């Protein structure tokens, strides 16, 4: 499982640039008369074209935002429509042996499954936009209410995992580059390769055996209540956070190492080396500014992965978050809950990937002029 995810996000970067993005390119060469006259024709056009000509960067960001919203809409269609198109029926599963046609019919009516698909989709989407995900089939509770409580818990977990793992990963990645092909790098390489191959639940259980059972310094299961104080909560989530950090660290570190090495092996760094500049000066003046963009990208991609990684970790540690809620719902085929959780996870994933994209564009001006 640890190999899931961060290597491949959704890729708005590979998207063919729409009409809007092509404009900045034209603006860049607008010095020549021919292009200028061509452009005046364009500028006279829609508001969007004028906007993208005057503020190419803002236009690019707005375009990325729009793309993500569109993607999210398509994903909602897929999560809902795909579920409808696939065979299998909650009513039959729910009733099991006692599924007489009449009983199945009653349940379907009860759950509103007899209405046409398009109508249900739009009422579901409309509700989802207002934060209302309907009621759970299994427990008859409001899905939004449950999610409201659990989403906070999950984000709490992911947030602490992120603030520990990011500095650690970047530091170790730089260390590996500094000592590349020497002992520290080789040790880091082998250990991180092993860490990538470990399933999340295995890491989790090893930590439980070591710290909760053997030494008794940590708590398991990591249940949290509303009445818990902040410090109590922190000590309860120590083990799940450690698991998430270990799982995401190896990925992030390897990607950071690759990103920095990529810059370090470029021609201008070689030139700087040959000029006889010191190692620190090369890194600070030549390598670092160019490595910022890929590193930011790595971090954002791994954050997106973290949001998904909480699913397994929550199940292992019996932590009341979104992931556990979703897995429980899947086992009883409670579709409103599954769809709501799926949509929220996908939304986080898409928007963090978009953030990675936008930050990369901001940090690396070359990306502003797609070929």
């Amino acid at each position, binding site marked *: *499982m640890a*190999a*899931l*995810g961060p290597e*491949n*996000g*959704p*890729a*708005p970067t*590979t998207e*063919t640039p729409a009409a809007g993005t092509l404009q900045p390119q034209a603006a860049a060469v607008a010095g020549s008369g021919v292009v200028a006259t061509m452009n005046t024709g364009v500028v006279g056009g829609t508001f969007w074209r004028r906007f993208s000509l005057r503020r190419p960067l803002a236009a690019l960001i707005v375009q990325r935002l729009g793309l993500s919203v569109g*993607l999210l809409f*398509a*994903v909602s269609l*897929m*999560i809902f429509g*795909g*579920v409808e198109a*696939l*065979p*299998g029926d909650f009513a039959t599963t729910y009733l099991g042996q006692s599924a007489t046609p009449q009983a199945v019919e009653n349940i379907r009516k009860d759950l509103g499954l007899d209405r046409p698909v398009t109508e249900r989709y739009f009422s579901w989407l409309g509700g989802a936009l207002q934060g209302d995900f309907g009621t759970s089939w299994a427990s008859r509770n409001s899905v939004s209410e449950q999610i409201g409580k659990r989403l906070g818990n999950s984000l709490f977990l992911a947030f602490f995992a992120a603030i520990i793992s990011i500095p650690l990963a970047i530091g170790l990645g730089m260390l590996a580059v500094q000592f*590349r*092909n020497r002992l520290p790098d080789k040790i880091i390489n*082998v250990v991180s*390769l092993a860490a990538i*191959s*470990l*399933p*999340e*639940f*295995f890491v989790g*259980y*090893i930590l*439980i*055996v070591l710290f*909760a*059972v053997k030494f008794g310094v940590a708590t*398991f299961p990591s249940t949290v209540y509303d009445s818990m104080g902040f410090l109590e909560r922190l000590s309860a989530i120590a083990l799940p956070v450690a698991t998430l950090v270990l799982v995401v660290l190896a990925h992030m570190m390897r990607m950071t190492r*690759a990103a920095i090495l*990529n810059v370090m*092996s470029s021609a201008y760094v070689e030139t700087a080396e040959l000029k006889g500049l010191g190692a620190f000066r090369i890194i600070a003046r030549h390598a670092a500014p160019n490595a910022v963009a890929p590193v930011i990208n790595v971090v954002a991609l791994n954050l997106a*992965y973290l949001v*998904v990684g909480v*699913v*397994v970790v929550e*199940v292992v540690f019996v932590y009341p978050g979104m992931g556990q809620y*979703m*897995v429980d*719902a*899947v086992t009883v*085929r409670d*579709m409103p809950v*599954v*769809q709501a*959780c*799926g949509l929220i*996870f*996908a939304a986080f*994933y*898409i928007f963090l990937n978009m953030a990675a994209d936008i930050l990369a564009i901001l940090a690396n001006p070359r990306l502003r002029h797609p070929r």
Partner: protein
Amino acid sequence: MNLRSIPISAWVGFAGIAIALICALFAPLIAPYGESQVVGDIWLPGGGDFLLGTDNLGRDLLSRLIYGARTTIFVALAATVISFSLGMLLSFTAAVTGGFIDQLFSRFNDLMMAIPTLIFALVVLAVLPQHLWILILVMAVLDSTRVFRIGRAVALDVAVMEFVEAARLRGEGTGWIIFREILPNTLSPLLAEFGLRFAFSILFLSTLSFLGLGIQPPAADWGGMVKDNKDGIIFGINAALIPGGAIAALAICVNLVVDWLMKRTSSLKGGRGDA
């Protein structure tokens, strides 16, 4: 290529994979007890009659581990092979045809990849009935999106070469170009990718089984065995760690081999060699 040039790490990887494969192929001959045969008390410690102890129902852990190798490797391998066939066929078609087909496939692929794999699998498995072949198919389709992306990138590099151009001008069909021109020239990088996807499949299958959505009991599989025995952990019984360790060991072995394969292909291309 000579055997001397293979590093020790790759040999370790090969050895681990070989052991797992032998266990998988000859499970009934090696395993001391049956797959779901109850042989003693629950959670007996290792040693004596039961080398690794017994599990939560009193079944021999070693026997289940050996049978589990069979299920786990078979399902993961089947899913990887199908995902590769599917992903490569679609990606090569997209790369060779270009134009509308390419756009259609690529955009649809982007959409599939916009949903995290595990979440997608959870949503789909919540609806579908629980059969082994459905599980394999779901894993294969989800994984093929990754294969598609890399396959298209690799194939596009080859598709602009002169010999492909020559084949086109000779009047060869798309099928010939895909199987006779592009496939042989992309096998090397794709082989490394195959190993990577296989390791990923093992981990993914184990995770699904651990969540109770993968292989259904009583069939033994490593992820499911962790799930079965996880309640013992707070009592200091480590039965859940043994199948977990087996998953990790197999995945590490595959990754060690892949690492070597990747280094080999990148050194063939000739770069500065440290990226």
